[in-house]
């Protein structure tokens, strides 16, 4: 059996002690970076890149890879405990995770998120072991028209995101699109809406916006609360682990969450879109959508599985095709190159030790992360006993360092503070942040891919319909959009018939 062979090769490489240690270091640093808000894997990996010169290629990649997926584990910690996302991809976990913490169920939320992460990560690696090369070929089928149609489908997720006013959610999405249009326009080469700021030439950075909207604003709100002499979270902590019923409820979301592995394979797909999409999907499928936003375990289990699965997916195009799909993979690519190994379609045949060593390390890494994270839950939860007046300066400081470290830019720090104020006002007036973040990510991608498609077809919009994958995606969008309308029409007709029937009598 080819498949079993693959698995055995991968595992045999990974249990070698010289590969286990870098894997553990990477996973450990990743967890730490994930827990610290704003501080992201990208900045950490580029800082550690020179250190890896002393290691072998496989060891370097194993360590750096561990940082990225490790960060997805740690990211949910502060989302749940403090309503501050540790990583951009855990924004959505704040919604229900923090509500659970308020009810004293922080341990359960952290527990299910660690389980979800483990299952998401491991299932993704299993799929990778068996299917990596064909999957990568599939990713190549996604050209600009397919991407553009996928983005259109993504945009309608906004509708399922907010539990409050729909108008407010749409307004925030529009605001996100506006923000996304800032910066240089790839198609014409000119710079739009930069208002004279050179640092806006490349658009508004995602990390400062997310950290500001969710992190800084939360600290501001809490400081305000503490002036009114209300403690942070007063509830005592019952049951550090999820109840049986919660486990059962999480099975579906976790199982579906692992499928977001496929989204991660597409360039630009990424963990953040996966987590938001998973939340929207769970809400759409749920019989009790009103429970989302009130501390519902499904709102934590799904997204936390999805972001880990998608993060693993991002390795597929790099390892099998030699194409980095996002910035983090770009750094890994650099690490390969500096060690004199060019990742490409031949990596598997010319350097099987590296290829299988890295994939094998991911099995080990996920187990290590689970073992590392479960006992930590008790410690994390105790952090909440630290008086807030001691805690918030530390949080602020870490946010400042984090936002600076993305591009080594002071401008990003200022941007974060400005979005902190905007986020504070948004929270005060009940405007949701998630639609804004989604639009900010999807907007520029949609615009770029749409422009490229039309340029490719010499100006014809038929390209979106004539290509099968794109056509299917657009059809799905259309059906999703009109289905509520049709359903309500049918219902009205039924009611109408009933009334008519009554009148007849």
């Amino acid at each position: 059996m080819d498949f079993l062979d693959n698995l055995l090769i991968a595992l045999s490489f990974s249990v070698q002690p010289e590969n286990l240690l870098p894997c553990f270091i990477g996973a450990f640093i990743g967890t730490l970076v994930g827990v610290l808000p704003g501080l992201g894997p990208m900045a950490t990996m580029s800082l550690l890149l020179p250190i890896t010169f002393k290691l072998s290629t496989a060891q370097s990649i194993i360590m750096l890879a561990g940082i990225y997926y490790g960060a997805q584990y740690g990211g949910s910690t502060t989302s749940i405990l403090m309503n501050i996302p540790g990583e951009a991809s855990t924004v959505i976990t704040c919604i229900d995770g923090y509500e659970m913490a308020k009810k004293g169920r922080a341990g359960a939320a952290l527990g299910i998120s660690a389980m979800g992460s483990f299952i998401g990560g491991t299932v993704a690696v299993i799929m990778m072991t068996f299917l990596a090369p064909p999957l990568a070929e599939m990713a190549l089928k996604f050209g600009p028209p397919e991407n553009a149609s996928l983005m259109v489908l993504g945009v309608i997720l906004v509708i399922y995101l907010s539990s409050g006013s729909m108008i407010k959610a749409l307004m925030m999405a529009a605001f996100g699109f506006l923000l996304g249009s800032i910066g240089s326009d790839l198609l014409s080469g000119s710079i739009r809406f930069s208002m004279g700021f050179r640092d806006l030439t490349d658009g508004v950075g995602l990390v400062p916006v997310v950290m500001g909207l969710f992190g800084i604003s939360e600290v501001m709100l809490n400081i305000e609360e503490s002036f009114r002499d209300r403690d942070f979270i007063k509830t005592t902590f019952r049951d550090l682990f999820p109840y049986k019923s919660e486990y059962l409820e999480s099975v579906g979301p976790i199982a579906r969450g692992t499928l977001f592995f496929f989204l991660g394979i597409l360039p630009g797909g990424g963990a953040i879109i996966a987590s938001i999409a998973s939340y929207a999907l769970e809400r759409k499928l749920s019989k009790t959508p009103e429970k989302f936003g009130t501390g519902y375990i499904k709102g934590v289990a799904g997204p936390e599985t999805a972001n880990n699965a998608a993060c693993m997916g991002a390795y597929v195009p790099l390892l099998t095709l030699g194409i980095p799909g996002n910035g983090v993979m770009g750094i890994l690519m650099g690490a390969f190159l500096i060690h004199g190994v060019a990742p490409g379609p031949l990596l598997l045949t010319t350097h099987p030790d590296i290829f299988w060593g890295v994939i094998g390390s991911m099995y080990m890494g996920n187990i290590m992360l689970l073992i590392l994270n479960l006992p930590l839950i008790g410690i994390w939860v105790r952090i909440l006993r630290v008086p807030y007046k001691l805690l918030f300066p530390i949080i602020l400081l870490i946010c400042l360092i984090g936002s600076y470290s993305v591009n080594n830019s002071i401008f990003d720090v200022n941007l974060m503070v400005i979005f902190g104020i905007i986020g504070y006002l948004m929270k005060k007036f009940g405007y949701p942040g998630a639609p804004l973040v989604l639009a900010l990510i999807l907007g520029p991608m949609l615009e770029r891919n749409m422009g490229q498609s039309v340029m490719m077809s010499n100006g014809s919009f038929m390209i979106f319909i004539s290509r099968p994958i794109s056509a299917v995606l657009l059809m799905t969008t259309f059906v999703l959009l009109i289905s509520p309308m049709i359903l309500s029409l049918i219902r009205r007709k039924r009611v109408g018939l009933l009334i008519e029937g009554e009148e007849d009598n």
Partner: protein
Amino acid sequence: MSHRTFWVVMFCCFLLSMVNGNGLAQGTYPERPIQALVSYAPGGSTDSGARVIAEYMQKYLKQPFLIVNKPGGGSSIAGNELFRSKPDGYTLGMFTSAPTTPEYTMNPQNFIYKTKDLQPVAEWSKNLTVFLSRYDAPWKSIEELIKHAKANPSKLVWSHAGRGNRDWIEGTLFVGQAGIKMLDVPFQGAADSMTALLGGNVDVVVTSYGGVTIGQMEAKKIRALAISDEKRSSVLPDVPTLKELGYEIGTPENYLGMFAPKGTPAEVLQKLNEAVLKATQDPEVQQKLAKIGLAASYKNAKDLEQLVDNFGKFQFKILKELGVLK
């Protein structure tokens, strides 16, 4: 003065000396770590190349040589920072053409300085612009590509990194000289271009050799049809130049150089220059650069200055001729 205050004062002095660096003793350069700005995010060929050079600068200068990535703004963020930093040799730039010819680029308003405000130190490598196609494309050479394009006008698609970029200039000049009609689509970064090429959405990619292209070439997924350099390159010895094929693009060499703010002391520049020379002559460095897709190439400060000037003026002229600069 109590013991505690004494130590506090001492500690403050220590901190101050850290901040000011060479505050107290003035020894020989370099006596503390040097940082070199790169105007791209980590992982690309410029960044990887700079990191290889940095490793050896460290060896010769006996001080850490740190690469600091300041991506964005069409390289203006890093350029402006270098312009603003102290001309003491502790902040340098490992730059391509974009931040070194600010007034001759598409968006000169991004830069707060002019070409003459940066001091060239030495060239350490150069980028190669390659014309790439899928290995199984119906054409195997530039001639066949032209034949194919003439038979199918406005059907083939070529990609570049955006209007005004070097690869766009070279591609546009070539398409014009060959008298063919092809559609051009910009892609952000070589990785996106490569995905589109391998996926069959794009037929020709014009880009710098290195990074994502190396693995694809090794696996015979793509083929280099030509390079835009004047002479054949040691990195891709089998690939013909456009000049050989009868197309005079005329773009000056695509240098990767070390730059310092104007006013850096001559002896510091001298030391850096010598270190770069040593590094580029080191067979180990040459080998490591080749694996990234770069050829080690040395030019002294004067020659590099001339090259920068030539390139800036050439780019300016072409951008005007092509109608993207008014």
